[in-house]
């Protein structure tokens, strides 16, 4: 296979901390050499651009199987490539729920037809009922990289204990949403002055903290590997900090939306900003940013959740939650970097080396011998988001018409060009 070199590019590798201008030589789908090395074969001019490991998005919901009109794995993969995401983990909350080895195989087959790396999260409980354990061992052997109960938290503490305990045998990563179902029942917003004025039922951050405290205690009791799946509040972050001060194997994620937006973005009942967990106050957003910068938060996800307009153009309380995010993840983050809020290297670590180590994947780093999964982006390119131009089948984004700084120029996966932005688009 011929060599390919990205020349004179700023190389950013969060795993090693490497940050310098140099060349990246690629052969046979792998990084052959990087840094101060001679170019070989075809070249790509990387001047003015940044090369980082292809992003790993640990939380992507598609509609396949069951609701392919929302998003198929294929369309999600195209959107991912356009967003610099070379590895994505698809969630099990589909129809049917991915709670069985044969369904894991189905998704894996679909994944092989895409140009990027698609992994699958198996369901933690059968049909996501929150009660009946799934075949975690067999699904792990079939290739499930983690286990999740989808959008629904496992609310029963005894079941959660057994899940963490049983999965420890397989060293499986268990993701649970930190929401107290009873406290948050029928709510659609953050409980605050703002939502009260809007007349929207909200739930307090305590609903998040209670479950973080509970799950951390259960992880400590059982030795299970826990991922706290999307925190949204300062109170939640403090609970994670407390848990991490003890010797427990827990990790925590946050959605890009919660690093960029706050409850005011709901504005005049804008359902495109209706998310789960809900957007909270500006102090919460700032706390989450600091959580990424100081390493308390391990993972940033897009929380990609495609919803057709028909599910969004409804009264706020009735509208579906969620936003697409694969294509906007990096730009939304780079905008916060440009604002001087997010630390670039820490932010990228949450999208590359940290998820790779949690999922035990060979990618997520720029190093000799690593897969040539690379995103090239322009840190400073200004642009305006136009939701109609998104590649996702659904266009629901709260960032529509927003000004952004920084954009993906090219994406390589396994040394293959999977996305290139033409100058006109």
């Amino acid at each position, binding site marked *: 296979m011929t060599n390919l070199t990205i020349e004179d590019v700023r190389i950013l590798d969060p795993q090693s901390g490497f940050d310098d201008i140099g060349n990246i030589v690629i052969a046979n789908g792998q990084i052959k050499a990087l840094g101060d090395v001679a170019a070989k074969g075809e070249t790509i001019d990387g001047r003015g651009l940044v090369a980082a490991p292809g992003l790993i998005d640990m939380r992507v919901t598609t509609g396949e199987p069951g609701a392919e009109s929302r998003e198929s794995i294929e369309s999600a993969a195209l959107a991912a490539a356009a967003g610099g995401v070379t590895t994505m983990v698809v969630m099990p909350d589909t129809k049917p729920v991915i709670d069985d080895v044969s369904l894991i195989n189905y998704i894996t087959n679909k994944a092989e037809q895409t140009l990027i790396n698609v992994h699958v999260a198996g369901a933690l*409980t*059968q049909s996501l009922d929150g*009660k*009946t*354990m*799934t*075949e*975690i*061992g*067999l699904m792990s052997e079939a290739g499930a990289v983690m286990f999740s109960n989808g959008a629904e938290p496992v609310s029963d503490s005894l079941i959660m204990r*057994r899940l963490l*305990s*049983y999965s*420890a*045998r397989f060293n499986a990563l268990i993701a649970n949403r930190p929401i107290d179902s009873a406290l948050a029942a029928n709510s659609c917003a953050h409980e605050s002055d703002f939502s009260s004025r809007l007349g929207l039922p909200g739930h307090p951050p305590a609903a998040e903290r209670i479950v973080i405290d509970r799950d951390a205690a259960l992880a400590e009791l*059982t*030795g299970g590997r826990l991922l706290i799946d999307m925190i949204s509040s300062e109170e939640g972050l403090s609970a994670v900090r407390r848990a991490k001060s003890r010797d427990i194997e827990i990790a925590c994620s946050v959605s890009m939306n919660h690093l960029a937006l706050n409850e005011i973005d709901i504005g005049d009942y804008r359902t495109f900003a209706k998310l789960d967990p809900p957007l909270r106050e500006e102090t919460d957003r700032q706390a989450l940013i600091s959580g990424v910068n100081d390493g308390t938060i391990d993972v940033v996800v897009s929380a990609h959740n495609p919803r057709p307009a028909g599910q969004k153009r409804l009264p706020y309380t009735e509208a579906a939650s969620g936003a697409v995010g694969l294509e906007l993840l990096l730009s939304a983050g780079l905008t916060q970097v440009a604002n001087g809020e997010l630390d670039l290297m820490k932010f990228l670590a949450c999208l590359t080396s940290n998820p790779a180590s949690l999922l035990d994947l060979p990618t997520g780093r720029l190093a000799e011998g690593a897969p040539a999964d690379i995103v090239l982006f322009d840190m400073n390119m200004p642009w305006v988001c136009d939701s109609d131009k998104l590649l996702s089948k659904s266009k629901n984004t709260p960032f529509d018409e927003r000004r952004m700084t920084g954009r993906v120029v090219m994406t390589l996966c396994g040394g293959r060009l999977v996305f290139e932005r033409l100058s006109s688009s």
Partner: protein
Amino acid sequence: MASSYGYPFEQQHCLSISQFSRPDIETLLTLGNHYLDLDVQKSKERSMLAGKTLVNLFFENSTRTEKSFEIAGRRLGADVINMSVVGSSVKKGETLLDTAATLNAMNPDILVVRHGASGAPALLAQKVSGSVINAGDGVHEHPTQALLDALTLRRHFGEDLGGLRIAICGDIKHSRVARSDIQLLNVLGCDIRLIGPPTLIPADADKWGVDVFHDMETGLEGCDVVMMLRLQMERMSGAFVPSKREYFHFYGLDRSKLGFAKQGAMVMHPGPMNRGVEISSDVADDPKVSLITSQVESGVAMRMGILHALSDARDGVA
């Protein structure tokens, strides 16, 4: 009175392995071994328990334990009465102690009790005048099963079981057999390992003088004996274990998993077996590796030995 090392056997009941000293255990196993001889076992004299009454009081269903005690009692000349209480007075609201008082008024000499609540036979033992034998209480103990297991092991491996590496596999959390076996085999100097999914291993089991493993391959390494335990059907549909299929895949004993143990390792199971769940039929039925039938044979002899020892102790026979 029977004795070992000069220590007379003075136990009035058989409630738990922990009540027995090492000499007591030797006395019981020696008597059990004595009755293994079918000429002795079936001897027409039947004098030992002649004129005595043995009541099998089973609050839970059982076939083999109840019949084993019945045969053992009859072969020693006792009058045996089986009382299955599963669906009778208990349902009418009678408490355990009411039942005990009623029975006591009939003056049985030996009460063999199985009950779903841990500690129930011990409670009965305080209230009746005869000897109480625990035939399984809740998830506490099943001491006669452990003794017959030890007797089976001695038949195969010889008198000294010291250093024998024994893996007890499966649902240890809910197993009274495992709890009795662990104590008894520890006293006899065996090297015990527990293997099972984390959800079926009791809390802090590593403090029981055993090594805990969660996968068969490493756990079975170098084992001379593999003891499989029964997994109740209701426990493998998502509560403790996801499914029968997954359980058998990771913990069911088949030829390939048996290959992880020492060459020539023997297989035991207290019964009744779930074929295809915790053990495959070809392993269970292979006389070259299975001691399962031998366990049942030992059961009658061992229980005769226990009845003999308790009866002697109560009568104060020198």
